[in-house]
């Protein structure tokens, strides 16, 4: 048999080919498109239903829902990366309380300066994340179960520990710690009077930018997609699967600890049950943002839109003069719609060629 021309394109390959991909289907292939469309829809919805206020033009209202979105959005960034990496962290919400309480203890009981106390809280966050990740990687049990355990352990510690030490269900007086003023300026101040945008929004935007860059533009980002998409294949080509997953768990707990610090400083104290239940909002933001529950696919930018939807829902429902309990129903409906929309968009993206 004659050798083929080295550079000749394979004729059979031409037969297999279907139409070239247009810019429209390229756009539809983006995981964050559904979240953007959802955010626009929710924004328009409330500008119609919240008739008594200027929903769209009042920057004070933007500031309100923006800070709610920012708090959820900050932790949703590492939660989304973790979900793309194929894992869950149900302890992300309760970690906020644990970290805030630890900061409170260190500043009010051990009389520490707030800056070294914050450094210790961050180290605590990294340690909890390492334990979560290490346990998941070593036992090969679902992270859902492992972190549910962490959730309840921390929840018990938060409530029991606080009551035992203070006799109440909160730690107050963090603002008397040395260094509080400078910490407050960086973590809990507001900008642009009279609208008073929360500085947390800057943290949110910054963390989203860093998360998106890491995911799309770094070697570690490539590994995140791989360990979530197919860990066996990833390992066989030399991706350090265990190390990548542990790093993702550490990122989640550490950012949750950061939120605990920010909350404790903003409120000048912290409740023992702070953050409980929030973990689901992070997961909703990530799923609305296009992250696949099974891992391997998703977007950090989309997750920011998901957090914006949650922020708008909380404010919009109140300003529409509906009972605030409808927020949960609204978030549930948005979650289900998002999952279905994502599935449709992804299905379309994968039908680039008919098979």
């Amino acid at each position, binding site marked *: *048999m004659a*050798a*083929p021309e*080295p*550079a*000749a*394109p*394979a004729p*059979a*390959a*031409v*037969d*297999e*080919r279907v139409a*070239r*991909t247009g810019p429209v289907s390229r756009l539809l292939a983006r995981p964050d498109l559904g979240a953007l469309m959802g955010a626009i829809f929710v924004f328009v919805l409330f500008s119609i239903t919240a008739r008594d206020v200027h929903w769209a033009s009042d920057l004070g209202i933007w500031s309100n829902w923006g800070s709610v979105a920012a708090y959820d959005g900050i932790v949703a960034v590492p939660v989304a990366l973790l979900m793309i990496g194929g894992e869950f962290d149900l302890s992300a919400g309760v970690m906020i309380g644990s970290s805030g309480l630890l900061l409170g203890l260190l500043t009010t009981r051990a009389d520490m300066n707030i800056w070294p106390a914050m450094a210790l809280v961050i180290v605590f966050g990294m340690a909890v994340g390492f334990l979560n990740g290490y346990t998941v990687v070593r036992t090969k049990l679902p992270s859902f179960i492992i972190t549910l355990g962490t959730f309840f352990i921390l929840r018990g510690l938060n409530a029991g520990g606080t009551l035992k030490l203070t006799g109440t269900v909160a730690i107050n007086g963090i603002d008397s710690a040395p260094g509080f003023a400078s910490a407050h300026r960086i973590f809990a101040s507001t900008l642009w009077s009279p609208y008073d945008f929360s500085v947390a929004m800057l943290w949110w935007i910054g963390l989203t930018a860093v998360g998106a*860059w890491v995911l799309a*533009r*770094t*070697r570690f*980002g*490539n590994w995140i*997609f*791989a360990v979530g*998409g*197919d860990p*066996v*294949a*990833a390992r*066989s*080509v*030399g*991706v350090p699967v265990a190390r990548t997953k542990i790093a993702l768990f550490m990122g989640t707990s550490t950012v949750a600890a950061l939120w605990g610090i920010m909350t404790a400083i903003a409120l000048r104290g912290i409740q023992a049950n702070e953050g409980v239940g929030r973990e689901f909002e992070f997961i909703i933001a990530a799923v609305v943002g296009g992250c*696949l529950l099974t891992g*391997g*696919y998703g977007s950090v930018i989309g997750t920011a839109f998901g957090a914006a939807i949650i922020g708008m829902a909380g404010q919009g429902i109140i300003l529409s003069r509906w009972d605030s309990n409808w927020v949960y129903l609204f978030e549930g409906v948005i979650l289900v719609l998002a999952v279905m929309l994502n599935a449709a968009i992804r299905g379309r*993206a*994968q*039908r*680039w*060629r008919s*098979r």
Partner: protein
Amino acid sequence: MSATARDAASPLLEVEELSKYFGNVVALSGVSAHVNAGEVTCILGDNGAGKSTLIKILSGVHQQDEGRVLVDGVEVHFNSPRDARARGIATVYQDLAMVPLMSIWRNFFLGAEPTLGPMPFRRFDLKFAKETARDQLAKMGIDIRDPDQPVGTLSGGERQSVAIARAVYFGARVLILDEPTSALGVKQAGVVLRYILQARDQGIGVIFITHNPHHAYPVGDRFVILNRGKSLGSYPRADIDQQELVRLMAGGHELTELQHELESMTAEVSGP
């Protein structure tokens, strides 16, 4: 190229009298084979013939109990797949080690991403990765529409081809292909066979494992037929025709016996 000089001296990869036992099961017994640079050696055999055991020894997953493995005429011992890879022996398994939801270029460089810049800002060199993936695939004659396409949207044959191109790019001198055509349709199998020839023409020694003599014959330079762990011989292409290959592969007289048996069964069924 210096490759030709080396060829004359010794084969790129050679095994001599290889045996492997699992407990009291003889998986492989006294098998010899070799592959030269720029040639395709086909290992043929039915299920249980010992093909998988042979590849696993060659790729460092198993170690032989008897016999020698030689690279460039020098005896080597592979204690792990990494040892084999370090010697330039790349194995492309059926599962392919690719992540379906990731794009072609992300998969191509997975685990060996090229980077740019100093540490805190070190980033994945996307431009280089996309261009290189496209160029390397074009070099193999694989004209992909878009390197951003997820690997899951490729056909089975195209996926095999990307895996082959990746192994070639990362310095494989010997490419071991484990049943690359078995799960494919006729046309797709043809695509993969063409890439086997492309790899051969780049001076790579290809070991092509298959149970299909119709896939092996058109591309092979040498045929090693395994049956129940034993070699039925190593035939250069000139010494064997396709019919003989099919006959040997099916176990020769065993096939004739089976034919008789089936005929007598048919006679019974269609009888009164």
